């Protein structure tokens, strides 16, 4: 029992749980800029990071924050930033740089109402497609959505692990409701958290090729200052990191960036299913809406309707297999979202079985309550 006593039971909001998750994952650098509703992440990390020997810095804007995060990661320190819509627009420039230079980093976007300054203190899920396609050019990226305080911890850890393993930026999409909802959470012991670190080179410096392909598709990553002097550039580069304009070097390089993610699909694509075994009506939901959806499905079951929930955790790459299976199994799919249907577009794209897909959207800054989804389920049952 001694071990259990040492565990800390905390009353945390989502933003705070992200901080604990990041620290457990080994994050030791944070650069950010104040923005509602993400600011608590900065505030708590400014206290916790120096205690852990890490660094917190408030930069002059989100462009700078993302630059500093990439710089820190190149120096060998796990790094992240946290922001909301307007700041998320600004980080896109250097996010693309992290994609092409394969620098591990985590970006938390606590979604609020948009566009522009929009609704700073209200909930929304309007940044879903931006998280996938916000920076210019074809690029690989992983987007994970959180729906509870416990998710905020575990998915943040997962985000760091995937980022380190695949050398790709990972975006954690939270929202105002998840960020500010307080729930009890038992902090795991350090040894209970699985932490993945990037793999360093195992050759002498003179043999090191910083962007050479290997069987994982993920090049070994040396940190600045470790004796492996190399060049990092946002230009398309050859395996030594130097700019190239040779078609025979460009395409294999860009293809590798995408293929390394494809190779990891089974562990990258996360979803949770609830009451799906015999479901005829399936609700697809993520973020705070997944909480309402679960209650709605349970309410519908109480009324004898065979409803189930597929909660999407990985939004991109889209968990096609799980969505496809649910669509084939069910008569009707309901996709409630706090936007005008950004994920339902993706689900429609996957729908090869002619399943009826019903959108349910709110863009008025209010959450979708369980009753609203229950009504939708009843109306299609």
């Amino acid at each position: 029992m001694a071990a259990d006593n040492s565990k800390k039971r905390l009353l945390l909001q989502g933003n705070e749980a992200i901080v604990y998750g990041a620290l457990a994952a080994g994050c030791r650098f944070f650069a950010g800029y104040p923005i509602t509703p993400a600011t608590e992440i900065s505030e708590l990390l400014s206290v916790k990071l120096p205690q852990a020997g890490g660094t917190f810095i408030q930069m002059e804007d989100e462009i700078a924050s993302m630059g500093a995060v990439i710089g820190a990661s190149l120096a060998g320190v796990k790094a992240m930033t946290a922001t909301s819509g307007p700041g998320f627009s600004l980080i896109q420039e250097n996010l693309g740089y992290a994609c092409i230079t394969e620098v591990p980093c985590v970006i938390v976007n606590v979604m609020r109402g948009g566009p522009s300054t929009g609704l700073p203190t209200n909930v929304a899920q309007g940044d879903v497609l931006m998280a996938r396609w916000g920076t210019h050019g074809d690029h690989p990226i992983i987007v994970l959505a959180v729906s509870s305080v416990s998710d905020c911890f575990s998915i943040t850890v997962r985000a760091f692990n995937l980022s380190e393993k695949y050398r790709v930026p990972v975006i954690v999409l939270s929202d105002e409701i998840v960020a500010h909802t307080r729930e009890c959470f038992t902090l795991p012991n350090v040894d209970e958290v699985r932490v993945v670190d990037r793999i360093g080179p195992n050759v002498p410096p003179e043999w090191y090729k910083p962007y050479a392909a290997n069987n994982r598709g993920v090049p070994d990553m040396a940190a600045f200052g470790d004796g492996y002097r190399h060049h990092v550039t946002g230009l398309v580069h050859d395996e030594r990191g130097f700019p190239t304009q040779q078609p025979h070097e460009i395409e294999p390089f860009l293809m590798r960036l995408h293929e390394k993610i494809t190779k990891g699909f089974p562990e990258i694509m996360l979803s949770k299913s609830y009451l799906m075994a015999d479901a005829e009506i399936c609700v697809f939901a993520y973020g705070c809406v997944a909480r309402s959806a679960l209650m709605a499905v349970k309410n519908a079951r109480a009324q004898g309707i065979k409803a189930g929930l597929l909660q999407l955790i990985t939004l991109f790459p889209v968990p096609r297999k799980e969505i496809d299976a649910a669509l084939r199994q069910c008569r009707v799919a309901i996709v409630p979202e706090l936007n005008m249907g950004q994920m339902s577009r993706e689900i429609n794209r996957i729908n090869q079985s002619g399943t009826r897909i019903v959108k349910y959207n709110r863009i008025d800054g209010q959450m979708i309550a369980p009753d609203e989804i229950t009504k939708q389920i009843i109306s299609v049952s």
Partner: protein
Amino acid sequence: MVVDAETIRQEYLRHDKKFPHVWCPGCGNGIVLGSLLRAIHNLQLPKDDVVVASGIGCSSRMTTYIDFNTLHTTHGRALTFATGVKLAKPQLRVIAVMGDGDATAIGGNHFIHAARRNINITAIIVNNSTYGMTGGQYSPTTPYGSKSTTSTYGHVEHAFSIAELAVTAGAAFVARGTVYHAAHLDTLLEQAISKRGFSVVEVISNCHVQHGRRNKLGDAVKMIASYQERAVPVKKAQSMTEKEMEGKFTIGVLCDVEKPISTEEYDRIRQESCHMV
């Protein structure tokens, strides 16, 4: 004694990089590069400990050719990346190389905040008064009345004085040199790199191809030689009138002050906060 070029070439240029470089014949960037390498050589900095970050533009291509930890970043953002590197690994010597448009237009905000923060980084700004790489548009340092591809009728805005801007923003060390005064530039860069705190060296350089040609300033030799007359040592300038300084600029050390360095202050916070857990 000045170290010979062959030693610098052998020791500090990347031999596995596919030369030639991107610079036009006569460009001042090569002179700045030589000065930077001689300064690093004279300071005996181990190559593994040096990080050189750059932005986007002709001078920023410098990082491709030199054998350190090099980081060719996005336009205007070199100092933000450099800040991350320095904070994450304070033992590294971090130098940022930027152009005038890079550092004071798109990156102007980062530049003044890096100076205000007094983080232990050296910023080298090669000021050629134009956007050379994109073909000669007006930059924040293009003189009033000058012609460029985006001011064919003459420029209606006024130029920044980069070094003075850095002084006002709070940099601990600020100097200005030119590509004509190469030996002097070696000394300034040495001083800047060894300075504890944020140090800035503005280097007045020539873009005879884009800026010089459109403004009838002559070829590379004529443009570079003109700095001999236009550059006035800081001390001498103090006794000169505004009228006498017209068309001229100061060279030398504009500012050298001691103040707490944020990187070191933060380290103290790390030590203290550990006891507060």
